[in-house]
C-alpha cells in the first residue's frame, strides 16, 4: 500500500516538472526573477518556439481532453447518457470568474488565486451535479439525455439573465492565469485519477451498472449512490475544465456553452470510443485540431465547411464505425499501453 502511495506522489511530481519544461520549451524562457513568471509564463508575439496561436490551441486541446475524460466517467463507465455537460462547464467557468471578481481580494498571490478558482469552479459545479444527479435517478436512455439537455439549457439561460456576470453581453476582464504548464499538469493528473477510478472496485461497479442496472441491484449493491457519486465527480471535472477555460480566454459568453458544445463533448467520446480513456483523449485532441486545421480550407474557399465536415464525420462514424476508434464491439476497449 505504501509503495503505491509513493509511486503516485512521484508520478505527480514528475508531471509537474515535465509540464513546466514543456511550457519553457514551447513558449520560451521566462526571467527567473519572479516565481510568478516561471509558473505563469505565456508567449508574447514572437518569443517562443511556436506562435501564440498554436499555443492557445494546445491549451484548448488540454481543456477539451479534460472535458472528454469527465464525460467518459458518466457516459462510458456508468452508462448514463447525458446531453447537458456544457452546463457544468459553464458553471465552473462563471463560478470561478465570479469568485475572482467579487470574492477573492486582488492581493492574493497568483498561484493561490488559481487553485482557489479551480476548486471553487469545480466545487460549485459538483454541487449542481449532485442536485441534478439525484433528480434524474429514475431515468435512463433517451429520457435521461433529454432531461439533462433541458438542465444544460436552463443553466445557460439562467446565467444569461444574471446581469452581475455580464448576462447576455458576456463577462470580461477575467484574470488569465492558465498557461500550457498548468493545463498539461491538470490533464495528466485528471487522466491518472480517472484511470485509478476505472481500476478500482468503484469503477467496476460503474461498469456493472452500465451493463445491467437491475442485476447490480439484485446483487445487493445500491446503484443510486454510485450514480450520484459519478455525477458529482464528473461535474467537478467539467467545472474544473470550465474554470480553466475562463482563465485562459479572459472572456466568457453564454453562447459558448450551448447544447452544441455538449454535443461536441459527446462526439469526442463517441469518436474516440465509449468507455476508453485513451479514446476520450484522442477524441478530444482530434476534435480540437481538426476544426482549426479546416479553418485553412476556409481561407481558401471562403466558406466555413468545418461544421459540415464535422457533422458528416460524426454521422458516418455512427453508421460505419459505431464503436469509435478505441472502442470495441466485443466489450473490451482498446487503450494506450500505459493506460491499460
Amino acid at each position, binding site marked *: 500500500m505504501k509503495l503505491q502511495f509513493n509511486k503516485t506522489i512521484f508520478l505527480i511530481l514528475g508531471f509537474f516538472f515535465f509540464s513546466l519544461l514543456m511550457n519553457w520549451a514551447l513558449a520560451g524562457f521566462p526571467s527567473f526573477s519572479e516565481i510568478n513568471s516561471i509558473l505563469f509564463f505565456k508567449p508574447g508575439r514572437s518569443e517562443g518556439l511556436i506562435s501564440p496561436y498554436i499555443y492557445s490551441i494546445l491549451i484548448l486541446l488540454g481543456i477539451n481532453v479534460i472535458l472528454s475524460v469527465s464525460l467518459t466517467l458518466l457516459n462510458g463507465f456508468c452508462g448514463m447518457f447525458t446531453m447537458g455537460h456544457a452546463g457544468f462547464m459553464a458553471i465552473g467557468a462563471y463560478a470561478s470568474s465570479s469568485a475572482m471578481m467579487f470574492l477573492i481580494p486582488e492581493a492574493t498571490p497568483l498561484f493561490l488565486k488559481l487553485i482557489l478558482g479551480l476548486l471553487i469552479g469545480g466545487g460549485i459545479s459538483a454541487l449542481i451535479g449532485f442536485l441534478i444527479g439525484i433528480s434524474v435517478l429514475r431515468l435512463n436512455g433517451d429520457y435521461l439525455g433529454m432531461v439533462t439537455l433541458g438542465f444544460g439549457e436552463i443553466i445557460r439561460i439562467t446565467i444569461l439573465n444574471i446581469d452581475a456576470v455580464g448576462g*447576455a453581453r458576456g463577462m470580461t476582464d477575467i484574470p488569465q492565469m492558465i498557461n500550457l504548464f498548468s493545463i498539461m499538469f491538470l490533464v495528466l493528473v485528471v487522466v491518472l485519477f480517472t484511470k485509478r477510478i476505472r481500476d478500482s472496485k468503484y469503477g467496476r461497479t460503474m461498469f456493472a451498472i452500465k451493463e445491467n442496472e437491475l442485476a447490480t441491484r439484485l446483487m445487493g449493491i445500491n446503484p443510486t449512490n454510485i450514480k450520484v457519486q459519478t455525477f458529482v465527480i464528473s461535474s467537478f471535472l467539467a467545472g474544473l475544465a470550465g474554470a480553466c477555460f475562463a482563465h485562459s480566454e479572459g472572456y466568457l459568453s453564454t453562447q459558448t456553452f450551448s447544447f452544441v458544445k455538449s454535443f461536441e463533448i459527446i462526439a469526442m467520446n463517441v469518436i474516440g470510443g465509449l468507455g476508453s480513456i485513451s479514446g476520450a483523449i484522442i477524441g478530444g485532441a482530434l476534435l480540437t485540431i481538426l476544426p482549426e486545421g479546416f479553418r485553412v480550407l476556409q481561407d481558401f474557399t471562403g466558406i466555413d465547411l468545418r461544421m459540415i465536415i464535422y457533422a458528416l464525420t460524426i454521422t458516418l462514424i455512427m453508421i460505419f464505425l459505431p464503436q469509435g476508434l478505441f472502442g470495441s464491439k466485443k466489450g473490451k476497449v482498446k487503450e494506450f499501453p500505459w493506460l491499460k
Partner: protein
Amino acid sequence: MFGFMKKNVGKTLLVLSVGVLFSCFDSKKSDTIVIGNYGSMTGSEATFGLSTRDGILLAMEQLNAQGGINGKKVELKVYDNQGKPEEARLSVEKLINVDNVVAILGEVASTRSLAAAPVAQQYKVPMISPSSTNPEVTKKGDYIFRVCFIDPFQGSVMAKFAFNSLKLKKAVILRDSKSDYSVGLADYFIKTFTTELTGSIVADEKYQSGDVDFKAQLTSIKGKDFDFIFLPGYYTEVGLLARQARELGITKPILGGDGWDSPTLFEVGGDALNNTYISNHFSPDDPRPEVVAYVKTYKERFGVVPDGLSSAGYDAANVLFAAMKKAPSLKGEDLRNAIADTKNFPGVTGLLSLNENRDAVKSAVILKIENGKFNYLETVNP
C-alpha cells in the same frame, strides 16, 4: 488490410490534421503592409460588417493607387466573426499572431469590440473601431481608438430631439439585452431625458437579438400611456419590431440610434418604419464637397449609395493611413502615438479630432424615415 487501416485511422487523422495546422504558418515576408479587419459578414448584422469592409476597401484602393505608404502597398486581411463575440476575439488573435498585421480596423458592434480589444491591447497592436459607440471600448487600453462619437453624446442627442423638437414627454424604452450598445445607449438616453429634461419613462422592456416574436412585450406596452418608443437596437430586430408594433395598433413615433443604419432595415420593416427618427454618423445628402465626391466614387465602385457604416470604415482607414504616413515607423508604439495625434481630420462623417480618451469629438445627424429612405433633418454639434 481494412483492419490495419481502421486501427491506424485515428493516428493518421491526427497526423494529417496536425500537418494541416502547421502548414498554414509560412510568415509572408513581402513588400506589403498588412492591416486587418474583423466584422460580422454573416448573421443578423451582416450588412454592418460588409459595409464597413467596403468602405475600408475603397480607402485602401485609393491609397494604393497613389503609391501606398512611402511606396509600399497596403493589404487587407478580413475575417468574419459571424456576429459572435468569441469569434471576434479569435479573429483578432489570428490577425495578430498568424497574419502579423500592424493595425486592426473593427468592430462595429460594441459587444464584439469589447471582446476583442483586450487582445489587441495585450499584444500592443493599435485597433481603431469605426462605429462602436459604447464608451467602455476605448477604456480597454491606450491602443484602442475609435473614429465615432460615444453613446453618452448620442443618447443625449435623441433625448433632446424628442423632448425639444418633437415635444414628446413620455417614453417607453425597448432595449436589446444582448448588446452592450443597446443597453448603454438606453441608459444614457434615460439619464438625459429624466434628469436634464423633465421627461418620464413609462416602461422599460427588453428583448434579445435573435428574437423574432415581440408581441408579448409590445402587448404590455400597448396598454400604457406613452408618447413614443425609444428603440436603440440593431436593424433586423428593429424592422420586425416596427412591423409587429404597427400590427398591434401602435402608431406612435419610434426613435432609435445608429444601429438602425442598414438597407435591410427597409426590407424587413417596410411601411411600418414611417414616423420614425434616428441619430446617425453620416448622411449621404451632406453638401460638403468631400462627401459629394466620396458618395460618387463609392457608388461607381460598389453600385449603391454608402451608408453610415461604410463611411465610418472609410474614415477609420484613412485616419490609420494618415497616421502611418506620419509615424516614424510602423511598430506598435510609434503607430499608436501617431494615431492618437489625429486632430481636425476631414472625414466624410465629419471633422475628426481624437481626445485624450481616444474617442472622436464630432457631430451627429438626425434622420427621419419616410417612404423607405432616410431623410436628413438636422446636425447636432457636441
